[in-house]
């Protein structure tokens, strides 16, 4: 039981797919201008990832290794199409705001990464828990970035005014940069730096050492 709990909680910080493995950055940049869109996309990703991990784990003994990637992508993409259709049917306005990014869950490296690395080797229940944990880790990072961007970019949180804007007679001048993609890069970079400073174990080893200083040779 404790082990299962670890499978879920590890990917939140210690093995977070976004900050440690730097996966799923594309959507993390695109949908984090507001908390509502980040929350919806995170939920969609968690559902797709958990179901995909469960299904792939169920059939793992019968997936020929020659076509395993195609089989996984087919299953993931089908789930994504279904999720997209559900969003269009029950949350049309939100699906218009997320535009193409729901469909792009199919290409999110986290999904294929978890099914390939974990679900293909493990039983369904641990696979789904692992998927749930990784989805939650992704959601956590998205929500942190989205909260910062929405708060400083538009002065609101979940579309509720928090900082009174100058335009409405308040004192806060919104930072336009926060609504542009580069700000997500900057926030994400700072977040990775903060986590790795607090947990030095996450720091990657140098891939190469700098050359020793060459002594000046007199001709």
């Amino acid at each position, binding site marked *: 039981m404790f082990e299962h709990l670890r499978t879920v909680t590890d990917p939140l910080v210690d093995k977070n797919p976004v900050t440690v493995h730097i996966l799923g950055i594309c959507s993390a940049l695109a949908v984090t201008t507001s908390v509502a869109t980040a929350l919806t996309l995170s939920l969609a990703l968690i559902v797709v990832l958990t179901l995909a991990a469960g299904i792939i784990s169920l059939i793992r003994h*019968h997936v020929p*290794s020659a076509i395993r990637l195609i089989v996984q992508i*087919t299953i993931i*993409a089908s789930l994504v199409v*279904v999720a997209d259709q559900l969003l*269009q049917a029950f949350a049309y306005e939100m699906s218009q705001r997320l535009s193409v990014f729901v469909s792009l869950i199919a290409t999110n490296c986290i999904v294929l990464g978890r099914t390939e690395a974990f679900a293909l080797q493990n039983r369904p229940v641990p696979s789904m828990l692992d998927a749930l944990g990784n989805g939650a880790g992704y959601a956590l990072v998205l929500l942190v970035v989205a909260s910062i961007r929405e708060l400083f970019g538009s002065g609101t949180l979940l579309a509720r005014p928090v900082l009174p804007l100058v335009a409405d007679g308040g004192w806060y001048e919104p930072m336009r940069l926060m609504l542009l993609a580069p700000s997500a890069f900057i926030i994400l970079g700072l977040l990775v730096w903060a986590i790795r400073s607090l947990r030095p174990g996450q720091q990657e080893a140098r891939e190469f050492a700098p050359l020793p200083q060459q002594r000046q040779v007199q001709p």
Partner: protein
Amino acid sequence: MAELRNPWRRFLARPNSDRTKTVGIALIVAVVCGLCISTTSVLLRPLIAVNVEADRQGRMSAMLAGLPGIGAILAQAGADAVEAVIIDLDQGRIAEDLDPSGFDQAAVAADPSTSTALARAEDLAGIGRRENFAQAYVVRSEGERALVVLPVYGNGYQSTIRAYLALEADLATVAAFTVYEQGETPGLGARIAEPAWQAQWAGKSVSRDGEIVIEVVRGSSAGDETEVDGISGASVTGYAVTDMIHFWLGPNGFGPWLDRLRLEDQ
């Protein structure tokens, strides 16, 4: 080995490197996934259609409410000020026997008995067949016609562009042009859906001496009242918008009906 008689079990018992099993698994996964997607798509289509329709209505109300003068009429008279009419395009008159509330223009366009095939030379909008009956909207203020809203569509660069063209009471001045559905190239042709581009249509004139001349020009229109600035990098989308407006205001589109309205005015 009784259970191996069962062909399904025999299939599953094959080694994973086996070619038959590889092809079989691929086929099964494809069929099951295909079935799942088709089922959801068919089940959810009516719900999605309702959402798209509500969105379309919302855009139309937003467009009307944003027009100078019209917003006030709507606020006064409510939604009743907008009268939906079905136009018999060949006769150029309102088809009184058709009920606008249950009118399905897509079905009319798809049915060969209620649509007309267009010759290549007439088919400016690139739509192939044109429905014989089309919906339009008339906004009235104190009994007088204030605005005519024509839904227009045509083939763009890579998608069907659908828009509302709102004409003022003189049937020549554009009150607004709003694109509500398009799939043109993002960042280029898709900019026809941006309010800034659509805003330049207001006040333009569609015709000169009774001839439809309005045009989306390449580059800047230099203030001509029958020209709209084109978008750089989206010439084809611009031509398509020009052509579809020419088609729908012309003899195969709403032209005969608009002519009749002008005659009645005199």
